[in-house]
């Protein structure tokens, strides 16, 4: 490809330098306007009304990303598993809703019905979870902050629990007994074979700081969804409240 001169080098009535100056002026003006439009757009994005801690257009983008993710989601795709020798204790990163000590013998997990006014359908002792088939896995616990840790878990599948005690609702919500921490899960993630109601970590019963007597471990999500000290499980037709999603984070947080 050879360059095409705008004006012929000879016999040109126009001075190319002058012509270039004019074109440059016009282009800079157009570029300036485009930059102004762009800056206005970004400013609007930044300062639009908040929807759960983040400007509503950005919230819409997170929801769009969620739909794309769900369209691609494969229930058979598994989080990678590791050799148990790599397992270590993850850091205790949050104490929200956690009691310092718990009495496992008196612990109950409430199962709440779907609907506008959920009622407690069952109040199960920890033994009901121990009676479900036991599964072990060594997976990577990935924190939304960016760190990760390989951990060994043992517990019952959430899907087994749901099939035995729950409902076929599009969402599942889990809360601590005091309702101070709460997470929501889509059904596909809740029913995934690696979503565990865990009672053991690295071969030992859970400590209170890690969620004794029962916590969720969902390697398909960031760690914030793996709620500790589960006090209640609610089956819901609408998206359940989620502590961090109310504070600007994505509700779905799916891997």
């Amino acid at each position, binding site marked *: *490809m*050879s*360059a*095409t*001169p*705008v*004006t*012929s*080098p000879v016999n*040109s009535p126009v*001075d*190319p*330098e002058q*012509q*270039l100056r004019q*074109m*440059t002026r*016009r*282009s*800079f003006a157009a*570029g300036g306007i*485009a930059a102004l439009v*762009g800056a206005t757009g*970004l400013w609007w*994005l930044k300062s639009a009304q908040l929807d759960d*801690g*983040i400007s509503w257009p*950005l*919230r819409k*983008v*997170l929801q769009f*990303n969620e739909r794309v*993710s769900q369209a*691609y*989601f*494969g229930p058979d*795709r*598994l*989080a*990678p598993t590791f050799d148990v020798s790599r397992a270590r204790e993850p850091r205790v990163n949050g104490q929200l809703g956690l009691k310092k000590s718990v009495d496992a013998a008196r612990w109950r997990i409430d199962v709440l019905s779907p609907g506008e006014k959920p009622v407690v359908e069952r109040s199960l002792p920890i033994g009901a979870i121990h009676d479900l088939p036991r599964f072990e896995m060594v997976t*990577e616990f*990935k*924190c*939304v*902050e*960016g*760190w*990760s840790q390989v951990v060994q878990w043992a517990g019952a599948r959430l899907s087994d629990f749901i099939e035995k005690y729950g409902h076929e609702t599009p969402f599942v919500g889990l809360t601590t007994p005091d309702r101070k921490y709460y997470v929501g899960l889509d059904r596909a993630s809740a029913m995934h074979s690696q979503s565990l109601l865990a009672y053991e970590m690295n071969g030992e019963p859970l400590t209170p700081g890690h969620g004794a007597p029962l916590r969720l471990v969902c*390697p*398909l999500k960031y760690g914030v969804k793996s709620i500790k000290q589960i006090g209640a499980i609610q089956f819901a037709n609408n998206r359940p409240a989620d502590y*961090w999603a109310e*504070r*600007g*984070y*994505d509700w779905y947080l*799916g*891997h």
Partner: protein
Amino acid sequence: MRPLEHKHPRPIRWMHWLNVVLLSGMIWSGLLIYWANDVYNVRLGRRVLFHFFPDWFYNALGLNARLAQGMAWHLFFMWGFALNGLAYVGYTLISGEWRHLVPTRKSFREAWVVVLHDLHLSNVEPPKRKFNAAQQFAYTGVILMGGGSLLTGLAIYKPVQFGWLTNALGGYEWARFEHFALTVGYVLFFLMHITQVIRSGWGNFAAMVCGYELTCSVTQPLTVVTSPVVSLEPHLEQKVAEGAKTREKAELTRAT
């Protein structure tokens, strides 16, 4: 009178400047995310030479405790960054512009000539054409880095659904490190790019905005050649006055 040369097609100019905004947005929101787990250092043995990043850096740019915002912006800008990048690659392929941008086997030697010349270690002038070999390496390299950012980004964004990719990149933690390292690469590219743009002067810069530049040859319009290391003639004619020595050297470079 010097004729005007059409240097950069309009789509490339728009995509270039759009990318300035998008990549800045990606790096800024990426820093908001990185702040939450800022574990990377430059180390010599056990001694930390530089920590990414010192407190004054976060404070000066107001990057503290904005992880949620950072994620939302990052996962918004990513669409623009990816689509703009794909459009750019698509356009260069279809329009044939890639011929100016992609280095060939002969480019290694020429790039070396450019480096020596720009560091004032040699008076052998690199050939004057649209992009010299060093530019070709830089501009093609940075596009490959963009592809790398998309892949490493996807690997840490969806490490289960794209587990094969995360695995191929060495696992979740490695993918995060690679994603970060590429960003450091953009910053280094940017510093070099800005230095060279300043060195090249106003006309070269303005051509990225308006598309046109005065040709550097007085006697004839510059011929942009498709195959590199041909036709040094217009340039040589210009340099005749500077003596036969330079010419011989240039000829020699060309011949070897």
